[in-house]
C-alpha cells in the first residue's frame, strides 16, 4: 500500500509541478479566480489539500528514509487544509498575494514539486 501511495504522489507532483512551470500565469489566474469566490474559494482550496493530505498520511506512515518525504508532504497538506478551515482569513490573505505580475513564483513551486517527485521516484526505483 505504501508503494501505491508513493506512486500516486509521484504522479500528482509531476503533473501539477510541470503544469505550474509551463502554465504559471494560468495557475495565478486560477488562484485569483478562487479568491474571488470568497469563503467558497478558501474552503474549496482547503478541500483539495485535505483530500490529498488525508489520503497520503493515513495510508503512508513511513518515518525513515526517502519515503519519509511523502509522509511529510501528506502532513503539510493537512496543515494547509487546517489553516483554510480553521483560519480562513489567514488563508485568504495568502491567496491575496497572488498576482499575474508575480506569477513566476509558481515556477519555483513547480520546480520544488518536481524535485520531490524525482526523489520519491528514485526511492521507488531503488527498491523495485
Amino acid at each position, binding site marked *: 500500500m505504501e508503494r501505491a501511495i508513493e506512486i500516486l504522489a509521484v504522479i500528482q507532483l509531476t503533473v501539477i509541478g510541470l503544469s505550474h512551470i509551463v502554465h504559471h500565469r494560468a495557475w495565478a489566474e486560477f488562484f485569483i479566480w478562487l479568491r474571488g469566490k470568497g469563503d467558497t474559494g478558501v474552503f474549496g482550496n482547503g478541500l483539495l489539500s485535505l483530500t490529498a493530505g488525508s489520503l497520503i498520511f*493515513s495510508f503512508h506512515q513511513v518515518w525513515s528514509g526517502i519515503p519519509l518525504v511523502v509522509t511529510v508532504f501528506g502532513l503539510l497538506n493537512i496543515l494547509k487544509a487546517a489553516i483554510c478551515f480553521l483560519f480562513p482569513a489567514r488563508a485568504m490573505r495568502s491567496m491575496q498575494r497572488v498576482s499575474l505580475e508575480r506569477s513566476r513564483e509558481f515556477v519555483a513551486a513547480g520546480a520544488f514539486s518536481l524535485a520531490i517527485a524525482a526523489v520519491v521516484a528514485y526511492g521507488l526505483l531503488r527498491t523495485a
Partner: protein
Amino acid sequence: MTRALEMFAVIQLALVGLSHVVHHRRWAAFFIGLRGPGYGGVFVHGFLSLGFGAMIVAFHRVWSGMPLVLTIVGVLYLMKTAQCFLLPGVSLRSLERVTLERSRVFIGVGVLFLAIALATTIDLVRGIPTM
C-alpha cells in the same frame, strides 16, 4: 487497510467538523457560493461527496460494532452523491435552503462529524496491539 481508512475519515471529519462549528457562517457562504453556478455547483458538491463516500465503501466494509457507524456514513455519502448526479434539481433546492441567518444549523452538522470522529478514534485506539 481498514485502520488506515478509519484514520483518513477521522482527519477529514475532525477538521471539517471543527470548522463547521467555529465558522458556521463561512460554511453557509460556501454553500451559497456553490449554488451560484446552478447544476455546476451541484455536481461539484457531488464530486466532493463521491470522493469521501467511495473511499469509505471501497476500503471499509465493516458491518458490526463501532466501525459500522463509519460504514453507514460512507453509504449515506454515496446516496447523497447519487442524489446530486441523478436528481440535481432536488440537490439544488436543498442548497437553496441555506441562508446566512440560519447558518447555525452547520454547528449541529459539525458536532455530528466530531462525534463520529471521536467514536472512530476510540475504536482505533482500542485496536492498537499492546506490548
